[in-house]
């Protein structure tokens, strides 16, 4: 996976845009913060998601975090394998750890997403 080809959200999701489909996962930066994942909640195929709206949650022993949709659309695929083995999110966040695919309506806005460089800058300026 060429990380510089992906788009990013300030809430640490990555988005791979291909035609009308946006594949979504969480970044390695976010995955490293998730120690001892115990539970992953994902949406169903057909669910509508809003831009920057929560579509799932990842739970560790200590806390629950929402996962946000980088773009608006309809869930077209869900990586069900993760539910049984959520640690995959940590081990391969940009590959086998993908979460969902979102089908976007024509004209869906993606201009708000960050480039690789912009996202790296955000991480660095947050003190990491």
């Amino acid at each position, binding site marked *: 996976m060429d990380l510089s080809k992906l788009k990013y959200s300030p809430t640490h999701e990555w988005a791979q845009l291909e035609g009308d489909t946006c594949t979504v996962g969480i970044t390695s930066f976010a995955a490293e913060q998730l120690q*001892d994942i*115990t539970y992953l909640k994902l949406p169903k195929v057909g669910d509508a998601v809003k831009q920057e709206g929560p579509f799932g949650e990842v739970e560790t*022993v200590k806390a629950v975090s929402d996962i946000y949709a980088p773009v608006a659309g309809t869930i077209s695929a869900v990586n069900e394998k993760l539910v049984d083995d959520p640690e995959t999110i940590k081990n391969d966040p940009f590959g086998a750890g993908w979460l969902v695919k979102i089908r976007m309506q024509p004209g869906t806005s993606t201009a708000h997403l960050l480039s690789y460089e912009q996202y790296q800058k955000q991480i660095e300026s947050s003190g990491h």
Partner: protein
Amino acid sequence: MANLRTPLYDWHVAKKAKMVEFGGWEMPVQYTGIIDEHNAVRTAAGLFDISHMGRLSFGGPDALSLIQRVFTNNAATMKDFQVRYGLICNERGGVRDDVLVYRWPYGWAMVVNASNRLKIVEWLNQHKANLNVQMQDQTLDSCMIAVQGPKALEICRGLTEADASQLKYYYAAPTRWKGKQCVVSRTGYTGEDGIEVMISKAAAVELWQDVVARGAKPCGLGARDTLRLEAAMPLYGHELTETIDPLQAGLAWAVKLDKGDFIGRAALEQLQKLPRPVRVGLELEGKRAAREGCGVWSGSREVGKVTSGSFGPTLQKSIAMAYVEPTSAAVGTRLEVDIRGDRMSATVVKLPFYERKK
């Protein structure tokens, strides 16, 4: 006010522990990971910095009278070197703190919760009145560590001059570590066998490193919380508060209403006649954890609230403690917990969730 730091703070930071605020102190929540550390304590031995706990000592002819005045358990029947758990209640029977009292041939000591230390010192001073007691808060001059797990006693053989494995459960001994005065007790907050050691702050790092070298894994407050939850030990601020009384918390064994008067006794005698929510254990279906504040439901009626919950690493189950109406508290009762809008099935189970094999 800036958070306090234990004498081991620099060690924790150097080992890249994740630090958090707890009870006014900056404490390590984890080093390598909560589950890793939790498992070390269940299967071998873990080491905790618990220097944030308040350590008070009492001398003078009226020390016992003062303790009896504020303590729900009976200190008068304690033997020398014995340790006893009990509550400090307010006049309404609510819990001000849960504490350990230590009896020495020459005086008394008390270990209180970090977040309640100043409140309890003030409370004791307020109730000292004309009693002849000298109380000292030794918290900031000393440190306290816990070594817990089935291998704790084995790896601590020869650590102190007194042999900790000869101590009975809930007994303590004043002794020495490398010539320095310390106290070792057969106590803990994990559901495992083990010891706790108190020593001057100057000796903290060296003592800690000694125990690490013996094979104990450093553990943070995250594992301490999942361990005590599985063992169903109450945590102040969650299962115990100023508006929860010890009887509804299931701690009647630590309340001796017949020992003579103490603060809160009259209120507790009245309260015990009234129906009120009681502490129960819940086992949830699935892996999602119930968190503090989640509603507990019986059909369309909310019958209580969760006070602590987590995925239990040893039990491999989602467990929680909650206060529920007495009619929903029987073991086996089927209830539901509202987790972020989803109703999850739960069953009332016997406490503790986890009990070590003896």
